[in-house]
């Protein structure tokens, strides 16, 4: 895959042209977060859901009996509150956090590689994360702490894979092509190790399958908080590199002449993108296409300035994953399907569209 990006002209103009887009995306995401908990696998009326949300947000000041008049399950009103607040809202928030992490990572990698087809899973980071998770499941490590150890091992696996890529990036052979090929080779190797491991543990295979398909269930506020913290810090740092990414689009030599140490910046960006992706993969498994699609959506509506593209991709990514979650619950009521299936349904046609479009012009064109 070669570098096909065109040079973004007038970075200041790009930012000044449509900064309101970020505000609009943020507002839309907020609305989505508020209303998405209406959808779930257990039937709860929308007004009851909203009453519970307002009751919880206000610390109990509003709607002292949020379940009044509602059809309460066997678990009673406290069970209903747990369903809406602890199970659903934490799932909704995780969708936003993970989507945002994948979106901003995708935008970063497309900029680093100057390739519109780059995405967070291209470098084998997800394979490393999956192998880490599989090790915990297959060898039954730390049974009583597995809900935290599993994402921890996945995170370590993903980071370790990212570290190999970083070593390649720092070497004198660290061209874009070398990095991509290293990622592909690593991904294949790790997948082979995973398959071998699972041959010895069919029950582990069942659990790792969930991981490979990506899912938002079985998590809680603690895990949400950890994912949010990592994605917030790494994502914020990534967003500060918008100017450097803009200049990198001019080519490493030009960027160097304009004061950007392209190799050093590239390594830093790969590190941060790896951490962000690892945090996302660690809690939800592999969710494809969010990182690929989100930056392109932002470019379509806000231009190519990376100072807009990166935060915009985070907001679009969060919204994309949230929408996928909601649509899956509408399409298959009462069933929690792996969310990765739905993002791929939306992402695969978009990927094909990009491929066709590349024949004529770059999708990373001028703003």
């Amino acid at each position: 895959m070669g570098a096909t990006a065109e040079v973004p002209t007038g970075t200041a103009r790009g930012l000044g042209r449509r900064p309101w887009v970020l505000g609009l995306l943020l507002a839309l995401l907020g609305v989505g977060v508020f209303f998405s908990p209406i959808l779930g696998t257990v039937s709860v009326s929308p007004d009851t859901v909203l009453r519970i949300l307002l009751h919880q947000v206000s610390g109990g000041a509003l709607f002292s009996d949020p379940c009044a008049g509602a059809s309460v399950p066997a678990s009673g009103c406290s069970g209903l509150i747990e369903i809406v607040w602890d199970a659903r809202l934490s799932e909704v928030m995780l969708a936003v956090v993970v989507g945002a992490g994948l979106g901003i990572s995708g935008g970063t990698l497309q900029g680093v590689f100057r390739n519109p087809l780059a995405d967070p899973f291209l470098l084998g980071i997800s394979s490393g994360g999956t192998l880490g998770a599989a090790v915990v499941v297959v060898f039954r490590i730390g049974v009583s702490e597995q809900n935290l150890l599993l994402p921890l091992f996945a995170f370590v696996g993903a980071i370790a894979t990212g570290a190999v890529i970083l070593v390649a990036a720092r070497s004198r052979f660290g061209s874009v092509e070398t990095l991509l090929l290293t990622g592909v080779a690593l991904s294949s190797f790790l997948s082979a190790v995973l398959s071998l491991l699972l041959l010895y543990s069919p029950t582990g295979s069942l659990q790792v399958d969930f991981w490979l398909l990506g899912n938002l269930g079985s998590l809680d506020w603690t895990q949400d908080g950890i994912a949010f913290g990592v994605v917030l810090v790494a994502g914020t740092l990534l967003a500060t590199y918008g100017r450097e990414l803009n200049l990198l689009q001019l080519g490493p030599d030009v960027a160097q002449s304009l004061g950007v140490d392209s190799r050093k910046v590239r390594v830093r960006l790969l590190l941060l993108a790896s951490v962000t992706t690892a945090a996302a993969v660690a809690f939800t498994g592999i969710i494809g296409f969010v990182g690929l699609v989100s930056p392109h959506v932002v470019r379509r509506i806000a231009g190519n300035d990376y100072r807009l593209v990166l935060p915009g991709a985070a907001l679009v990514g969060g919204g994309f994953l949230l929408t996928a979650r909601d649509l899956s619950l509408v399409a298959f009521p009462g069933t929690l399907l792996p969310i990765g299936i739905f993002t791929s349904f939306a992402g695969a046609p978009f990927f094909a569209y990009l491929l066709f479009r590349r024949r004529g012009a770059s999708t990373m064109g001028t703003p």
Partner: protein
Amino acid sequence: MHLHDPSSTPPPVRRTVPLAWFVVGVIVAAGVSVAGIATSYALRPGSPSGPLSITDDLGRHDTVPADPARVVVLGPSIMDSMYRLGLRSHVVGVDCYAPSLGGLSSDYSADQVALWNLSSSMCVETGPTFDVEQLLALGPQLVLAATIVSVAAVEQITQTYHIPVVMLQPATLTGVILNDQLLGEIFEVPGASSSLVSSLQSALSRAASLQDNLTANGTPFPTVLVTYSADGNGYWTFGPGTFGQSLIELASGASISANATLPYPELSGEQVLASNPEYLVYGTGFGINESTYAGGPFWSQLITTQGGHAVGMDSNYFTEPDPTMILVGLPQLIAVLHPGSSA
């Protein structure tokens, strides 16, 4: 059908090892296992109706209420024990695969659904994603979980929602008996529990007696292939460390896959032909029947070679570590492999 992956089961029968010593070894090992696991199941002394402190099959510690009225059972093997102990009325939820796609029928056979009076309103999705919402809506006081539930999901149920979970994942057939004893303690049904345990032990004793007799007479164990699925490449079967293999050994059979490298290997048609098993037992149920095996390599030759010794059996008997495996599956397999025996 769920494949269970026990970490330790008795070693496979080897014809070169004196079988009498093997049987003695199994009995001693079983005794040691019973003593060890029984210790881990030691219940907290005190009021018989007070909460119980339990260490489950994965070594997790949890406190469960005595005789809980609302129980969610995640695993057909546990449901089998609950039913046989007369505890069906305590069960308010069971595992399902994707309620809007497969639902109950993915995890439970039609016979089980009818016998245990299960309904879709009891569904708790355990696959492809674990759905905690459905579990919470049922308001369980206790969750009993088998291998189909991820440990991470179990820990979430326990730590976030403070619902006690006992994981019943026996590694051996002895573990099945111990789990039934444990359920008897939790639900305070000592009579039903001891009756069931007695039946299970009798079935195992009869199998052991048959082994003793065959060994004493110098009669070799018949070779057998037990397969649970087939495709164009070969026949999927049970390797060392699986319940399927344990059942074959208890039934005084010599599995042709006893020395396989993997727990659930696929034997090629060539391997099966070369082994020339005296008996061919194929698993049925959940959409798999004899026509499935007809697509396997050399099936017609194998059937012919067996001379009528090819028999279909419910796959659950080999894969679900529950009382039915011992009370129904084991005698059926013995009847196939040793038609004249009274075991």
